[in-house]
């Protein structure tokens, strides 16, 4: 088989003789870009968790200020969410997608490799500037007018970067599949990354547009959007539900990919899984309304004023229930699959199951949150649901790293060490979210850390969450430690440590510059299994 | 092929005759071959033999060419021997010019140093060139004061007056661009360079008027920048000095000249100086033109009518007849005729009135401020003052008394 090469792989040929820093700065290799995303995302995760601990600690005593004054408290709060959502979850997920999707699709490269690289650097630049702006008293509700401007403008750059990365992934999923690989034959991580990227591509421009509006308004007019205090109202949706589980969509694919492999079985009802992931992406419709679509469940009886009730129910159902259905579908399929499984005791497995559960918990609680009669609006219940989704996503990402880590850097993360971390992480996630939900029922307000009415057990719940966040921080540190150790001293992984069925395991670990020396023609959903069965690859 | 021969012979003749013809033009006022002072004579004594030698060499060369052309023209002779030269001939013909030149070089060097001698100077005069006239000032220090009665400095222009047989040292400089002071019959030329003082010795051995011209290109009116040097007997020179230092005499009340004085104060005194002239309160009027505006200085008019040329000597204040009387006077009579100055009868009314009417038309000058302002230049020279004929009458009457 011969080919006309129009691109020249200058980088691949000459990367060895350039200094390391230069290869990182100039790379267009999707695996390297993905690792950049993941690495910086882990750092962002630590930062976000430290701030989260700080905020939770501050909430313990509602009367006075332990560490933060009222002005900075709001900002630390939003900084914690900014770092967790855009500094940790987003890059971890996008990084995995950028690194793994082309491999899974049997492609030699990501589509628009330089755009993807540029996406990373723009995201990083924007993130650093945003954080700098917050440090300079310019976050939402910040007092330094110029820094508020910087925060807005920088977040545009940051989100633009993510959008560029999403664009690369979406186009890769659509066009760069190996011959014979229809979308329905694509591995689930690729499918969910594709779906998630399209969802992001549709929603992130709205964020950009809003931010530009806000920037112009804040810098020049200060009329329509409410100045510094309006910032959170208008862009806050991007760091709260349900947008956060749009970000989680790609890693749902990890669950669907990993569980059958680790369970040494096949996924039950493949097409249903595709549909379930697709349904989750409807969440963007909710996120785009900028506020929760709530269900005003009022009136005398269920049947009185039915017309109005249907009018209220429809949007609620559309934007809140459907994604939840999708998530439930994923969970259901997972369970179905596990039923017939003979699972190996590998770390990715608990990460996948437990993470999925947390996301489901978050989505479900969010549904409750939007029912007006539950009277949870404006309470800290919202934070509980956020923590559940975010930590759940982080757990899934950790799982993804333990699963694909051997492929990315050729060495395994030891299962024995990682398994407890999955459990501990789950505990931390649960203890970090559930108490807030309880406190929410007890009317602890969201968005503030001090000066609210406060009585009895709430203190307990806040102490528990503080501990949970601290635990999550420790788990993350431990996981990063494990990962870093495995780079250098880990057990060498073979090309195919999990006995996989998809194409990422068909190349060496780590993969060469152009992923595959020969183009693989795909004949089924399990191309690697086909190859193994035909005996071509040992 | 006989024409060349004839031509070369005639050319040789012309070359030889050249020296004679130039030397014979006795009446040219700026003739470089008619020295009237020891400095010019030194030069003359050097250049005459040099020209002669050059002429002889020229004739020899022309004769040789003529001979060759005549003798070796193509008469169908065989192709000559392809010889590449004869060292003996070449060396000889190289050594001969070397010897001739050495012969020329030795007197040249000694003359150069003789002309540069300054230690026996008897009088020092500062000469300042500017666009386009010369200013002379006689400082009242040193021998000037001690031996020539210059108790006060004298500032004059156009005509330099020096005593006979006196070793005068000119300190030549310039106010704007480079000029060159040259009185051919008294000495060679010397550039007046702004910021530098160059020394030029003048000595006249015979009373008379000696014409000269600025010879370094100095801009628009370079052609109109002329000057004269007047050599006077010692007694006449003393009289001239006394007249220059005499106090100002105001015109009599009620005369046309008195009107002229008022007009002068009003129109002319910003640039032109008349020593001793005072305003109604008795304050002396001192001209102080701005630098480069109207030249930064204008000729001192205190004793205008003792000089017989004006405006950089570009025209005469004397009518043609009176001019001839002065210029052609014998050495003995010259002093008296020069010191008589310009009388009302002899005054060249035509040129003076034209000048007062519209000076820039008579002598090109940078006096159009608009033209120069566009380019950032500054204007120089005398502008058209827009005087009426009556005012001109009054000014002429006033100026006539400036003796």
């Amino acid at each position, binding site marked *: *088989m011969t*080919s006309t090469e*129009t*691109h*020249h*792989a*200058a*980088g*691949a040929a000459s*990367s060895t003789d350039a200094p390391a820093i230069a290869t990182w700065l*100039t790379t267009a290799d999707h695996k390297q870009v993905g690792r950049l995303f993941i690495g910086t995302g882990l750092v962002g995760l630590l930062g976000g968790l430290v701030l989260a601990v700080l905020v939770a600690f501050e909430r313990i005593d509602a009367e006075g200020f332990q560490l933060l004054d009222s002005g900075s408290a709001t900002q630390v709060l939003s900084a914690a969410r900014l770092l967790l959502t855009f500094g940790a979850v987003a890059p971890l997920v996008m990084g995995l997608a950028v690194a793994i999707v082309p491999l899974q699709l049997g*492609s*030699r*490269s*990501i589509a628009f490799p*330089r755009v993807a690289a*540029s996406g990373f*650097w*723009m995201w990083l630049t*924007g993130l*650093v*500037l945003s954080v700098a702006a917050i440090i300079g008293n310019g976050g939402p509700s910040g007092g330094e007018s*110029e820094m508020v*401007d*910087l925060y807005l403008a920088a977040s545009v750059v940051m989100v633009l970067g993510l959008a560029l990365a999403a664009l690369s992934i979406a186009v890769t*999923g*659509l*066009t*760069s*599949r190996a*011959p*014979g*690989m*229809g*979308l329905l034959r694509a591995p689930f991580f690729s499918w969910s990354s594709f779906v998630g990227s*399209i969802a992001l591509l549709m929603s992130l421009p709205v964020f950009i547009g809003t931010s530009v509006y806000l920037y112009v308004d804040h810098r020049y007019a200060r009329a329509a959007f409410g100045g510094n205090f309006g910032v959170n109202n208008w862009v806050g949706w991007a760091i709260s539900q349900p947008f956060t589980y749009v970000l989680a969509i790609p890693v749902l694919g990890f669950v669907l990919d990993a569980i059958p492999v680790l369970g040494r079985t096949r996924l039950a009802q493949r097409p249903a899984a595709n549909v379930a992931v697709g349904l989750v992406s*409807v969440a963007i*419709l909710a996120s785009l309304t900028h506020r929760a679509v709530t269900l005003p469940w009022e009136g005398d009886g269920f049947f009185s004023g039915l017309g109005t009730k249907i009018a209220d129910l*429809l*949007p609620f159902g*559309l*934007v809140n229930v459907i994604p939840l259905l999708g998530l439930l579908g994923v969970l259901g399929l997972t369970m179905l699959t596990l039923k017939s499984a003979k699972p190996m005791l590998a770390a990715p497995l608990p990460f996948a199951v437990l993470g999925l559960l947390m996301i489901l918990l978050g989505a479900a609680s969010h549904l409750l949150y939007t029912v007006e009669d539950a009277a949870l609006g404006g309470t800290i219940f919202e934070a509980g649901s956020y923590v559940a989704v975010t930590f759940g996503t982080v757990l899934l990402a950790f799982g993804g790293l333990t699963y694909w880590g051997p492929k990315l850097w050729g060495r395994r993360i030891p299962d024995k060490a990682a398994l407890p971390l999955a459990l501990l992480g789950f505990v931390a996630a649960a203890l970090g979210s559930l108490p807030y939900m309880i406190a929410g029922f007890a009317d602890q307000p969201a968005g503030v850390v001090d000066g609210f009415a406060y009585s009895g057990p709430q203190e307990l719940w806040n102490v528990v969450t503080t501990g949970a966040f601290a635990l999550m921080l420790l788990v993350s540190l431990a996981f990063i430690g494990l990962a870093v150790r495995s780079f250098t001293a880990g057990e060498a992984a073979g090309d195919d440590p999990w006995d996989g069925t998809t194409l990422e395991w068909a190349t060496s670990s780590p993969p060469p510059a152009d992923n595959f020396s020969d*183009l693989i*023609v795909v*004949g089924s959903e399990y191309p690697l299994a086909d190859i193994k069965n035909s005996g071509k690859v040992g | 092929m006989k024409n060349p021969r004839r031509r070369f012979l005639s050319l040789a003749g012309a070359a030889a005759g050249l020296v004679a013809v130039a030397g014979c033009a006795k009446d040219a006022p700026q003739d470089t071959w008619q020295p009237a002072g020891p400095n010019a004579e030194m030069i003359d004594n050097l250049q005459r033999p040099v020209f002669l030698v050059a002429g002889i060499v020229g004739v020899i060369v022309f004769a040789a060419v003529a001979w060759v052309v005549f003798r070796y023209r193509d008469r169908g002779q065989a192709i000559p021997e392809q010889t590449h030269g004869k060292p003996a001939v070449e060396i000889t013909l190289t050594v001969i010019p070397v010897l001739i030149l050495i012969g020329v070089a030795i007197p040249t060097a000694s003359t150069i140093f003789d002309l540069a001698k*300054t230690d026996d100077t008897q009088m020092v005069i*500062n000469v300042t060139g500017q666009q386009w006239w010369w200013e002379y*000032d006689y*400082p009242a*220090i040193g021998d000037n004061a001690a031996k020539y009665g210059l108790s006060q400095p004298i500032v004059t222009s156009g005509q330099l007056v020096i005593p006979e047989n006196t070793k005068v040292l000119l300190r030549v*400089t310039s*106010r704007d661009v480079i000029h060159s002071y040259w009185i051919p019959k008294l000495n060679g030329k010397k550039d007046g360079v702004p*910021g530098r*003082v160059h*020394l030029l010795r003048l000595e006249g051995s015979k009373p008379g008027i000696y014409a000269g011209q600025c010879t370094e290109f100095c801009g628009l009116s370079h052609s109109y920048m002329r000057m004269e040097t007047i050599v006077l007997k010692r007694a006449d020179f003393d009289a001239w000095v006394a007249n220059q230092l005499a106090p100002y005499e105001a015109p009599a009340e009620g005369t046309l000249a008195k009107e002229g004085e008022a007009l002068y104060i009003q129109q002319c005194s910003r640039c032109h*100086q008349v020593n001793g002239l005072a305003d109604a309160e008795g304050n002396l009027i001192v001209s*102080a033109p701005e*630098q*480069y505006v109207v030249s*930064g200085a204008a000729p001192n008019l205190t004793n205008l009518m003792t000089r017989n040329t004006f405006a950089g000597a570009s025209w005469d204040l004397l009518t043609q007849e009176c001019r001839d009387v002065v210029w052609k006077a014998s050495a003995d009579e010259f002093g008296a005729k020069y010191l008589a100055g310009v009388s009302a009868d002899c005054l060249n009314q035509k040129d003076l009135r034209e000048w007062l009417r519209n000076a820039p038309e008579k002598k090109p000058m940078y006096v159009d401020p608009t033209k120069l302002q566009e380019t950032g230049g500054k204007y120089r020279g005398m502008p058209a003052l827009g005087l009426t004929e009556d005012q001109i009458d009054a000014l002429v009457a006033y100026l006539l008394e400036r003796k």
Partner: protein
Amino acid sequence: MMITTSSKLLYGLGAGSLAAGFVWFVANEGQQLGSVMFAFLAVAFIFLGAIASYTRDGHVLSTDTAAHASSAASQKSVGRSLWPFGTAVSAGVTVVGLISSPGIFKVGVALLIAMLGEWMISNWAERASSSNEYNTKVRDYLVHPLELPVAGALLLAVIVLSFSRVFLALSKSVGAIVFAGMGALILFFGALIAVKRQANRRVVGAILGVLLLALAGTGVATALDGEREQLTEAAEEDHFAHRGCTEEKEYSDKKASRAVSMKSSILANVILTEDGQLYAEATGYPGQQSAITIQRSNPSTILFVNESSEARRMVLSYGKVVEDLGDGVERESALEACTSKVEKGGQQAVTVVVPKPSSASDEPFTITVPGVEGAKIDVFVP
């Protein structure tokens, strides 16, 4: 089959958006903005769905072996490129400039345009042919005319600025030593390279790079540190503006110079002897003079020679000038030209143009030496 997998997703999302828009319209009592937004979203989804349908999900059939080689999946990745990173940094600079100063903003925009341009051109060039060498040539041909001069100018600017900062910060004498040292260093390296022809280009490049960095670093450091004391002082004093010539003041005015060229055209030497006598030697005048003549309106250069044991300065006073400050206010100030303080045995020239004759002034024009009693030369301007 028109409805491929991805178009199913996209059409579905489009239909959902339409529904959401409709529901939004009903639920929010006819609020149009949100509905319009959803409508746009629907259009976008349906459009993308149509594309997916048209391209049939970009699917390459496993049986269509001829298409395999040209499929997107078989294309190798592009080479390394600095421009994506540069674009991001430029975007950051632009954002910072947007907030802080127009200058930085302009730099950012210029950088952004440059980076995107470079990116575009290198992408274009890399597709020009299969020969890497040729592609590089094409790129260089297009871009070098812009790149090299700009880069050169920037490099030059950095060097020049750094140099100037360094030397402005050093004291005069140290500056001379440093300069000499630098010269020696350059000579040494030059000689070394010249002698060792086979010297590794990378080594030489590295040395030069380090030197450049060191220079730029020193430049930044010294720029932050500020200019040397005298210059700062002079700047505060309005360097070379005339500020009166007293005995105490150290600095001269703009008419004074130690330039060599001035010494070639001296009108007069003014000499202060060891015993405090002041006399003049003027070209053409015999002997020592106690008075000199300066032609009016002439640029005249006078050289002051200090043979006394102390540092002295020469002051030429030539009257007064009245400035009209407007509103009928006038300021009278003395016209003076003076040298700096000249150490023993030193000399310095002053060029002066005296605009008015001495007779126009109430006070006589003189040359004096502050601090030396009776040292005076009369100056006469006709």
